[in-house]
């Protein structure tokens, strides 16, 4: 209980490290026009975590279907596959201490190879691919690793300024172990020149933090004659060990 050492086995069940709101995008970013009327004017009210934020739902591996992590095939007719550049996206979910997060649920969604989303509010002229749905999910293993297979999404135009185009991207939603870690973000692809023209990317203040959303091409993990690989690691909030705090709830 009065243990100073940061040794293995000491439960990390204290509050989460405070979120660095200077690193995340601000709510109000006028170049991303929709944010103007959808951003709170008041400052967020900062409060210590309570049990309501330090807990979260658990989704078990038994929830997953066989093709949930295979976007090339999970919407395709038997014997068919989605059209586009075949890729594997893999990586590790870690916390800020660098410890792998097992059992994290990742949900991903994306446009098809031509930049068209399968959504009734989407009106882009690029066609749907009858064999591509655009969503998948995976749960990290005991070390925090995940992988899924898909086609590389195309860039797509959107009505912000007259000629704005999103870089190729995959949306990620991540559940860690607590609701305080809840996160949605986007992954970009190494070398895409549109990254540096995009007002949504530019909501992130520091270029070095933007680069942490850019997945490098990994030829070492590419499967010859099949699919190239991109690596995307994700960091969730870490938490303190409770050496000194009130333990009336036990741990």
């Amino acid at each position, binding site marked *: 209980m009065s243990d100073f050492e940061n040794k293995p086995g000491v439960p990390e*069940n204290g509050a989460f490290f405070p979120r*660095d*709101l200077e690193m*995340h995008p*601000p*709510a109000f*970013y006028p170049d991303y026009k*929709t*944010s*103007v009327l*959808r*951003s*709170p*004017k*008041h400052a*967020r*009210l*900062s*409060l210590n*975590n*309570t*049990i*309501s*934020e*330090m*807990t979260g*739902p*658990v989704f078990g591996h038994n929830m997953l*279907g066989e093709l949930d992590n295979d976007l090339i095939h999970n919407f395709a007719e038997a014997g068919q596959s989605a059209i586009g550049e075949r890729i594997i996206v893999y990586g590790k979910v*870690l916390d*800020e*201490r660098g410890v792998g997060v097992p059992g994290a649920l990742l*949900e991903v*969604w994306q446009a098809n190879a031509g930049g068209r*989303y*399968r*959504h*009734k*509010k989407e009106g882009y002229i690029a066609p749907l691919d009858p064999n591509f*749905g655009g*969503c998948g999910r995976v749960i990290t293993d005991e070390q925090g690793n995940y992988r899924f297979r898909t086609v590389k999404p195309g860039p797509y135009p959107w009505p912000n300024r007259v000629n704005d185009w999103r870089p190729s991207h995959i*949306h990620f*939603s991540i559940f860690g172990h*607590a609701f*305080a870690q*809840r996160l*949605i*973000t986007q992954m970009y692809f190494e070398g895409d020149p549109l990254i540096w023209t995009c007002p949504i990317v530019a*909501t*992130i203040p520091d270029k070095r933090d933007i680069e942490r*959303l850019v997945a490098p091409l990994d030829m070492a993990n590419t499967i010859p004659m099949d699919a190239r690989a991109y690596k995307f690691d*994700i*960091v*969730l*909030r*870490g938490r303190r060990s409770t050496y000194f705090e*009130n333990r*009336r*709830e*036990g741990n």
Partner: protein
Amino acid sequence: MVQPLNLLKETPSQTAGPYVHIGLTANYAEIKGIYPEDIGAVMLTDKTKGERIKITGRVIDGAGTPLRDPVIEIWQADANGLYNSPEEKRGKADENFLGFGRCACDLETGVYSFETIKPGAVPFIDGRMMAPHITFWVVARGINLGLHTRMYFGDEEEANASDPMLSRIEQQVRMPTLIAERKGDTYHFDIHLQGDKETIFFDI
């Protein structure tokens, strides 16, 4: 140079965008056949313990217009005030209640609704009891970082008056933005992103 702390930085957030439904509520987005059901769409079974309630409302922007594209997630304790989570050390929660819900706002009207149970009270950090509440998380196009808030119950006036979180709000005039009004078995909870009635959002 001092020693490095060797901490990583959290991955930066990005907006969920207008097509968030594809990833989070695929069946609602009419992408059928990939997942048998959308997670969080049904929170109750016949065996779930507790008082059945409905929560409904809208997310409203700075011009007073309801958003039609958000996805809302909720997280709550069971009827006895226990969370269905490995982090819950005080007892075993109702095994027929996950405590998690997810709902897309209606693509035409912007209305969301959850059918759930009224949660029991849970303790604050120092052991004092908090009033019954439900954690809300809102994502949408134009929202760069998911917005955390809490819904408290309008018919729990006494508990709300002694809630340690609510009492931390300096501008008590804003506190009613977190209180849902009860009509029958339905609680009405609108979330105002901006303006005179702006909801209190938390950095937790």
